[in-house]
C-alpha cells in the first residue's frame, strides 16, 4: 500500500485554492474511512476524486460540504474554515449528493422555487432563475408534475438544477452521472464544462475513468481512505510503466527490414506496426529517435502510447496494495483497448 502521496508535478500555487484540506480523517467506530487526506483545488478547475466503492469518496464530499464533521484535520472551502465558519462555506457551495435530493411530493417547479426561497432570492428573481434552469435542463415540460413521477435521468437533472440555484462558486458532485444513459452523461459533462468555463470550481467523484479523463484538470485516486496518487490524467498515466512507441509502416518491405533491424520490439504484422516499450518521457523518446536514425529506419507514422487511466486505476487500487505492479488483464502493451466506463472491482 502506498504510504505517501505520490505527487508528480509541482503544484499550481498561483491561483487561489477553492478547496484545501490537510490531514482529513474520519472513522466510524473502528473502521477508518478517511486516513488523512490532503487536497488543494485551484479555483475555476475541475477536480475528480476517483476510487472504487467504499474508498471514502462520498465521506470526503460530505465533510467538505459541511454535511458531517471530520474527526481530524483542517479544511478551507471558498476561503472559509470548515469547522468554524460552516455557514459561510454553505453560502458558497452547491451540493449534489449521490442519492436524489429532490422533494418527491412536490413538483419540479415547486422544488426549484423552494431552493430560490432558501437562497433568499427576491420573488421575481427566484421565479426567473427557476424558469431558466428548468429550461436549461430540459424540464420545462415536466415542471408541473410531482418529482416522484420523474425518470432517474430527469430526477438527476432536477437535482443538479436545484444545486445551481443561487449560482454557487464551488459545486460538489458525488457521482453525478451514475445511472445515466450515455446521452445524459454527455449532456452532464457539457453542463459541467460550461459551469467551469464560467469560473465555477467543480469537485466531483466518479468511478468512471473516462469521466475523470474527460473532465478533470486534476485527478486524485482515493484508495482505502488515502490518496494513492494525484495529478493530471497524463501524469497519472505516466506513473505506471508500460507505455510504448508505435511505428507504423505502409510499405511491407520497409516494415520487414525495420523489424529485423530492431530486436526488442513487438511485431504486429497485420498492421505493419512495431511497438517499442517506452515510458513516453522526452529523454526516452529522443533515445528511440536517435536509435531509429542510426538504424536508418523511417516509419510513416510514429505515435506515443501511454497507459490509460484504467491501468492506473487497477494498479493503484488493487485489493492487496498492488501499487506499481500492474498485473491486471489490461496489459498496457495491447493497443486500442476499449476505454469504456466500467464498473470497477469491489
Amino acid at each position: 500500500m502506498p504510504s505517501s502521496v505520490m505527487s508528480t508535478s509541482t503544484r499550481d500555487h498561483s491561483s487561489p485554492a477553492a478547496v484545501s484540506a490537510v490531514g482529513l480523517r474520519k472513522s466510524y467506530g473502528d473502521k477508518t474511512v478517511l486516513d488523512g487526506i490532503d487536497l488543494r483545488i485551484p479555483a475555476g478547475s475541475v477536480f475528480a476524486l476517483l476510487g472504487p466503492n467504499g474508498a471514502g469518496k462520498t465521506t470526503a464530499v460530505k465533510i467538505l460540504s459541511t454535511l458531517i464533521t471530520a474527526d481530524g484535520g483542517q479544511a478551507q472551502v471558498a476561503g472559509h474554515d470548515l469547522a468554524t465558519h460552516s455557514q459561510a462555506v454553505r453560502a458558497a457551495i452547491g451540493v449534489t449528493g449521490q442519492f436524489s435530493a429532490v422533494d418527491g411530493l412536490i413538483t419540479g417547479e415547486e422544488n426549484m422555487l423552494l431552493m430560490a426561497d432558501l437562497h433568499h432570492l427576491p420573488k421575481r428573481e427566484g421565479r426567473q432563475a427557476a424558469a431558466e434552469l428548468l429550461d436549461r435542463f430540459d424540464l420545462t415540460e415536466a415542471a408541473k408534475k410531482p418529482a416522484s413521477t420523474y425518470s432517474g435521468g430527469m430526477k438527476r437533472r432536477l437535482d443538479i438544477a436545484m444545486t445551481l440555484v443561487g449560482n454557487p462558486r464551488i459545486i460538489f458532485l458525488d457521482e453525478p452521472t451514475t445511472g445515466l444513459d450515455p446521452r445524459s452523461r454527455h449532456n452532464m459533462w457539457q453542463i459541467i464544462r460550461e459551469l467551469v468555463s464560467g469560473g465555477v470550481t467543480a469537485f466531483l467523484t466518479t468511478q468512471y475513468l473516462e469521466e475523470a479523463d474527460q473532465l478533470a484538470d486534476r485527478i486524485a485516486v482515493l484508495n482505502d481512505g488515502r490518496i494513492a496518487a494525484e495529478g493530471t490524467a497524463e501524469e497519472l498515466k505516466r506513473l505506471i510503466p508500460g507505455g510504448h512507441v508505435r511505428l507504423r509502416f505502409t510499405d511491407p518491405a520497409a516494415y520487414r527490414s525495420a523489424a529485423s533491424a530492431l530486436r526488442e520490439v513487438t511485431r504486429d504484422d497485420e498492421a505493419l506496426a512495431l511497438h517499442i516499450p517506452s515510458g513516453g518521457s522526452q529523454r526516452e523518446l529522443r533515445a528511440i529517435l536517435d536509435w531509429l536514425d542510426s538504424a536508418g529506419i523511417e516509419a510513416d507514422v510514429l505515435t506515443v502510447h501511454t497507459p490509460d487511466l484504467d491501468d492506473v486505476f487497477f494498479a493503484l487500487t488493487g485489493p492487496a496494495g498492488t501499487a506499481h505492479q500492474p498485473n491486471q488483464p489490461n496489459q498496457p502493451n495491447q493497443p486500442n483497448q476499449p476505454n469504456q466506463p466500467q464498473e470497477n472491482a469491489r
Partner: protein
Amino acid sequence: MSSLSLALRDSSTMLRRNLLHARRYPSLTLNLLLTPVMLLLLFAYIFGDTMSAGIGGGDADRSEYLAYLVPGILMLTIGGTTIGSAVSVAMDMNEGIIARFRTLAIHRGSVLIGHVLGSVLQCVASAVLVGAVAVAIGFRTTDASVQEWILAVGLLTLVSLALTWIAVGMGMVSPNAEAAGNNAMPLMILPLLSSAFVPVDAMPGWFQPIAEYQPFTPAIETLRGLLLGTGIGHNGWLAVIWCVGLAVLGYLWSTSLFHRDPK
C-alpha cells in the same frame, strides 16, 4: 440578514413546504381524524346512555355525557394528529432533500420548526373539524365567554405545540415511517387513560394515579372548565406547566438529534 429574520424567513419557507405536502396528500391527516370521530360517535350513541347514567348519578341524559366527552375527544384528536407529524418527520429524514437542506446557508432549526408549525396548524384544524362534528350531533358549550373561547383555543394550540415537539423527537429517532407510527402511539393512548371518558374518581383506586399524573387529564379538565363552566382549580396551571415542560423537552431532544451528523 440578522439571525432572527433568517430564522423567520427560512422557517416560513419550510412551513410552506409542509403545508404543501399536507394539501397535496391530505389522506394521512384525514385518516388520523377517523379515530377521534369514531370514538366520539361510539361513546355518544352506543355507550352514551350507560355512561351518562354512571357520571350523572342516575338522572343525566345523553347530552350531558356528550358535553363531558367532547373536551377529551378534542385533546385526543390533537394527540392523534401529532402521530402524523412523527410519521412525516421520519419519512422526511430519510429523504435526500434533508441532506441538501443541511448544506444550505439557512437557519439550522428551520427544517424542524417548519414541521412543528405545520403540525400545530393541522392539529388546530383537526380539532375544529372534530368540534364541528360534535356540534352537529348536539354538543353545546355552557355560556362560554369570548375570553374563555380565546383561552380554550390557546390551550389547544399550546397542547398541540407541546405534543408536536415530542412527536418530532419520536419521528427523529425512528428509522422509518412504520416505526415512527408505533413509537408515537402513546400520544393517542395516553388520552384514553385520562379523564377523557370517565372522571378520575370513578376509576379503580390503583389506576387513579396513572390517570391523574399525566398531561392529558389537567389539559382536558381545563378545557372542560373553559367550555362548560366546571371547576378548573389547579388544573389550569398544571396543564400549562406540563405543556411548557414537554415543549422545551421535545425541542431540546429534537434539535440535538437533528444537529448530530447524519449517517
